């Protein structure tokens, strides 16, 4: 399976390379290093969010509220900045992450303690979090002129030729890689999703593990909230509306099994990059936004079909054994 997974990720790298090559053939400037760096930077937030979603999906749950969480945390970050322009940026970032974590904990607690299906919980909190933004602002926007320069320039700041936003996503990828491969919690995500019944017997608390997965996705959504609002220099009720679907799509394309237990950090990153390349490249080669949506959709279904085939083969073998008993 490990070999197969690696193959799946290699496959995705191949697909991205082919895609980039096709675009380069129609529009050579796309592959200029500076442009590729810009595409990566543009995909950074999606990468960060996909990492959180991955942890949740691995445990056989889903987080539909990530984009709403992002919008609410981002709005609060913007309001903090507007109210106290002198507040240092790290304090704002930490506040956004803390708020995101709390929103994630609410999801996690509902899934854990009340045993409500994750899709229902996060569908509910999605609307609640969006509604809260409206209650906080009465539907008013916070515009660029209300934000301090430091607030807006932080993600764009240049560090060794690359924007801080890109660096942050690289740091998050590295941190998540460490969590997933080198901590008992990361191992527990896989165990809970792979076989929750067996995980119980090994002393893993399935509910608590899921709770932590939601905390993680919430924290990353909070971070993304600040990044989104500062990057686009605007905050309102509907920012990132519908973005939860892009996040899930990135995970699915990245080979993270929606049935839980299978997936990897490189997969999530590659899935997000694939979507990022499509979104950035198709306009420059004159493909209409509607065709873009259709293409994204086809890619998702193809990815699911490929993954489902790989998993079904496994199932058949088990069935044969069970029959022999």
């Amino acid at each position: 399976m490990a070999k197969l997974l690696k193959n799946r990720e290699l496959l995705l790298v191949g697909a991205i390379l082919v895609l980039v090559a096709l675009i380069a053939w129609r529009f050579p400037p796309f592959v200029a290093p500076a442009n590729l760096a810009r595409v990566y930077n543009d995909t950074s937030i999606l990468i960060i969010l996909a990492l959180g979603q991955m942890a949740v999906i691995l445990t056989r749950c889903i987080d539909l509220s990530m984009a709403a969480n992002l919008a609410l945390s981002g709005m609060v970050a913007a309001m903090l900045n507007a109210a106290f322009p002198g507040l240092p940026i790290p304090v704002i970032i930490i506040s956004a992450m803390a708020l995101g974590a709390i929103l994630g904990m609410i999801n996690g607690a509902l899934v854990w303690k009340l045993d409500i299906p994750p899709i229902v919980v996060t569908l509910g909190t999605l609307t609640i979090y969006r509604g809260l933004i409206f209650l906080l602002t009465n539907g008013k926007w916070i515009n660029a002129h209300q934000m301090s320069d430091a607030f807006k320039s932080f993600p764009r700041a240049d560090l060794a030729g690359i924007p801080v936003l890109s660096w942050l996503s690289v740091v998050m990828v590295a941190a998540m890689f460490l969590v997933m491969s080198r901590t008992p919690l990361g191992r527990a995500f896989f165990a809970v999703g792979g076989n929750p019944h067996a995980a119980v017997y090994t002393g893993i608390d399935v509910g608590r593990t899921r709770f932590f997965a939601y905390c993680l996705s919430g924290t990353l959504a909070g971070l993304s909230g600040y990044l989104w609002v500062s990057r686009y220099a605007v905050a309102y009720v509907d920012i990132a509306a519908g973005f939860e679907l892009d996040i899930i799509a990135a995970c699915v394309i990245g080979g993270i099994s929606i049935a839980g237990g299978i997936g990897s950090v490189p997969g999530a990153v590659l899935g997000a990059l694939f979507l990022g390349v499509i979104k950035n490249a198709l306009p420059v080669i004159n493909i209409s936004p509607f065709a873009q949506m259709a293409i994204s959709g086809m890619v998702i279904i193809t990815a699911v079909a490929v993954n489902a085939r790989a998993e079904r083969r496994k199932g058949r073998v088990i069935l044969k054994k069970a029959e022999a008993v």
Partner: protein
Amino acid sequence: MLQDTTTSRMKPAIALEGISKSFPGVKALSDVSLSLYPGSVTALVGENGAGKSTLVKILTGIYQPDGGSIRVADMETTFATALSAARAGVTAIHQETVLFDELSVAENIFLGHAPRNRFGLIDWKKLNADARALLLRAGADFDPTIRLRDLGIAKKHLVAIARALSVDARVVIMDEPTAALSHKEIHELYALVERLKADGKAILFISHKFDEIFRIADRYTVFRDGTMVGEGLIADVAQDDLVRMMVGRAVGSVYPKKDVAIGAPVLTVSGYRHPTEFEDINFELRRGEILGFYGLVGAGRSEFMQSLIGITRPSAGAIRLDGEILVIRSPAEAIRSGIVYVPEERGRQGAIIGLPIFQNVTLPSLSRTSRSGFLKLANEFALAREYTSRLDLRAASLDQDVGTLSGGNQQKVVIAKWLATKPKVIILDEPTKGIDIGSKAAVHAFMSELAAEGLSVIMVSSEIPEIMGMSDRVIVMREGRIAGRLERDELTAEKLVRAAAGITEAA
């Protein structure tokens, strides 16, 4: 005698002759014959794994036999699908009824053949009226429009019977129908069987309980290891004869049981009870001992073991480990204090498919292999290698997914996982169920070695040879209570079966 003349004069409703069925590596049935007569109840008895379930699946068209013939009303036929068996009038009522909880009683009865009105839509009025009539024939008078989920198991059986009547079944198979019933419900079921008999149905009654077999069956058929070893009239047979036919074979010599000096008590369980699953469980487990837990399926053994390791909570009772009172609230606490449980269902509760072998092995031991909160893969590999090699695991690499291993090797991974936690007490629930003979022997040899090293083993098993071959002492459970305690030197298959089935010592 009277019945003998009636059945011999009658033609069988269904007759199986020379039926064989093999699965890869297992011969489930060989050259089995069985005839069921109208208006007569035939009891099918045999140990777990004797081939009863396979026979039921052949009768209901789920499996196709490799050889032999099926005759229905003197016409040779084949049941290619479950539907063709149903059309031929064979219907089965299972322990856990296979009906639909969210549908109404009437819908359940007529599912697939509901009466239609002239527009081709379901005729609800007729559906409910017909359902009521069928229920009355089955001896039930409740509203056919209520949802099935609101009924108890006994009433669900009645619905299943009404369904059988709706398709005009001639042969009714009842697979341990009383396993989940209360005392009163069982008596209602007996009355129903009598009514079906009077209606001229041929009934195959599968049961482990001798009292009910002798109460309602007219004929018996005994299976052992996939062959038919005896049949006849219940009136002509004694309980002891049936038991002998069921277990009659030499056991013991092939089991690698070592003589171990049994030490001081390690685990003491007293007064353990649960509101619905078991009560009054008291025993002592000693160092180096293998304590067998025998009983029929559903006797409460696994349920008790699960409460012992904190999956469920007992309503009363105390555990002492090495003399100290212990309260276990979760499996993690059980593992920490040195009690581990290797569950029965390997697929559902054992190996985690998708994780590599070494990660499966180290999952409950991560606190030992990691340093300051971070996993140390080198330590994990070392631990996994140590225990998988002791169990003689056949795998190309410890990095490979457990899903790619055979059932026997998966079981070894699961056992290695638990041994790696360095337990004091290990509970093995059906440790060799469904694995090949080679892997079985390895598991048994290893169990013996563990006991010799001073580990205390509880082995839950429904296989008599395994219980007799491996245990120092046996506790027999029946209906949630301890029904017998046997030392190794007084173990006989007859005693085990008697205690488990609740037969008194009289005969």
